[in-house]
């Protein structure tokens, strides 16, 4: 078992590196998140991993632990009402506002890609909503991004939120896994981004998705990220937060019941 001192160290590391709030009392959560990293890195247990991170000051290993703690539970089309509203109102409005210019959409904490691929599949299935879409996915975790780019999901993963008709339209079986079609994969560009860094160099976006990340951040990091996201919104742009994320003073509620905001 990870010692209390090592759990406290891990919590402090997560806070310093990514503004991530980790409760050091949640031993089971910490160990279950770190177990795959420990196995991958050749440690006998999560406790050995944290102990090594602490004693070696190993930058790469430290990031691997932080990334594992930041990982949300992924699901396609999470909160269907959000996607329905985007399809019915938000995206048509953005297309009309952009008047032929690219419509830029950024899934800012994309994990293993389910959210931005859900949008890509939805856009592909709405041919009447024609636009020059630019879709971006970013995450803190290099490993998540690799998986996202590969577009390869297990049987369990494709049953989390993905309607069967969408599955048969956009995936093919590859061994035991399900591979997303190259056409959908090629709609998205990927980059590792820490949302605590300067985001202004990435330009402005018409739609930002940052769901279920803020609630896990320390209060000061939440303020920082919200302000950075608000500044990244193009005029008339929209931001989608998770239902338990706090919008703060930086954002104006458009449909807060589904987490939809403007700057």
């Amino acid at each position, binding site marked *: 078992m990870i010692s209390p001192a090592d759990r406290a160290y891990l919590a402090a590391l997560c806070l310093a590196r990514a503004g991530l709030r980790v409760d050091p009392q949640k031993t089971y959560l910490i160990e279950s998140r770190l177990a795959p990293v420990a196995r991958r890195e050749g440690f006998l247990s999560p406790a050995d991993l944290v102990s090594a991170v602490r004693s070696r000051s190993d930058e790469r290993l430290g990031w691997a632990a932080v990334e594992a703690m930041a990982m949300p539970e992924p*699901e396609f089309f*999470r*909160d*269907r*009402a959000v996607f329905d509203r985007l399809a019915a109102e938000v995206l048509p409005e953005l297309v009309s506002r952009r008047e032929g210019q690219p419509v830029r959409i950024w899934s800012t904490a994309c994990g293993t890609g389910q959210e931005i691929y859900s949008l890509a599949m939805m856009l592909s299935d709405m041919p009447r909503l024609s636009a020059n879409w630019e879709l971006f996915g970013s995450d803190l975790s290099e490993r998540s991004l690799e998986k996202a780019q590969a577009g390869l999901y297990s*049987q*369990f993963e494709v*049953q*989390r*939120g993905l*309607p*069967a*008709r969408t*599955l*048969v339209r956009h*995936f*093919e*079986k590859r061994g035991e896994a*399900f591979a997303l079609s190259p056409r959908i994969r090629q709609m998205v560009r990927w980059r590792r981004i820490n949302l605590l860094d300067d985001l202004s160099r990435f330009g402005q976006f018409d739609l930002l998705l940052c769901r*279920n990340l803020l609630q896990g951040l320390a209060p000061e990091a939440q303020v920082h990220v919200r302000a950075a996201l608000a500044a990244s919104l193009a005029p008339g742009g929209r931001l989608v937060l*998770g*239902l*338990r994320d706090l919008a703060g003073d930086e954002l104006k509620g458009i449909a807060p019941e589904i987490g939809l905001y403007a700057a």
Partner: protein
Amino acid sequence: MKTCLIVDDSRVIRKVSRRILEDLGFEVAEASNGVEAMAWCDAMMPDVILLDWAMPEMDGLTFVRQLRTEPGGTAPKVVFCSSETGIERIREALDAGADEYIMKPFDGAIVAGKLRSLDLLQAIAA
């Protein structure tokens, strides 16, 4: 209370499915093949049918095709629940009249998600 008919020749799968569906608030009935299931539906159409593919007497595919031609047979939502995991097989089930498809093995979260997508469960905020 919404009703669900579980159609599967495996007693274990029926038992596991019953527990999941009762926890989700459904009234549950069971059948072990398509013929038994059709007799249930003739008496009263359920709101949803959780349907295995390979069964003796009448398989799931034959059942759903026949069900959809019966009076009132388009009303129940049909969710296949099968070990068949090929894309073509899933397409075949949907083309035959299924509304959704679950690949075995499954868990309560997968069943709940599928039923929610068919408006058979209240959306629960994540």
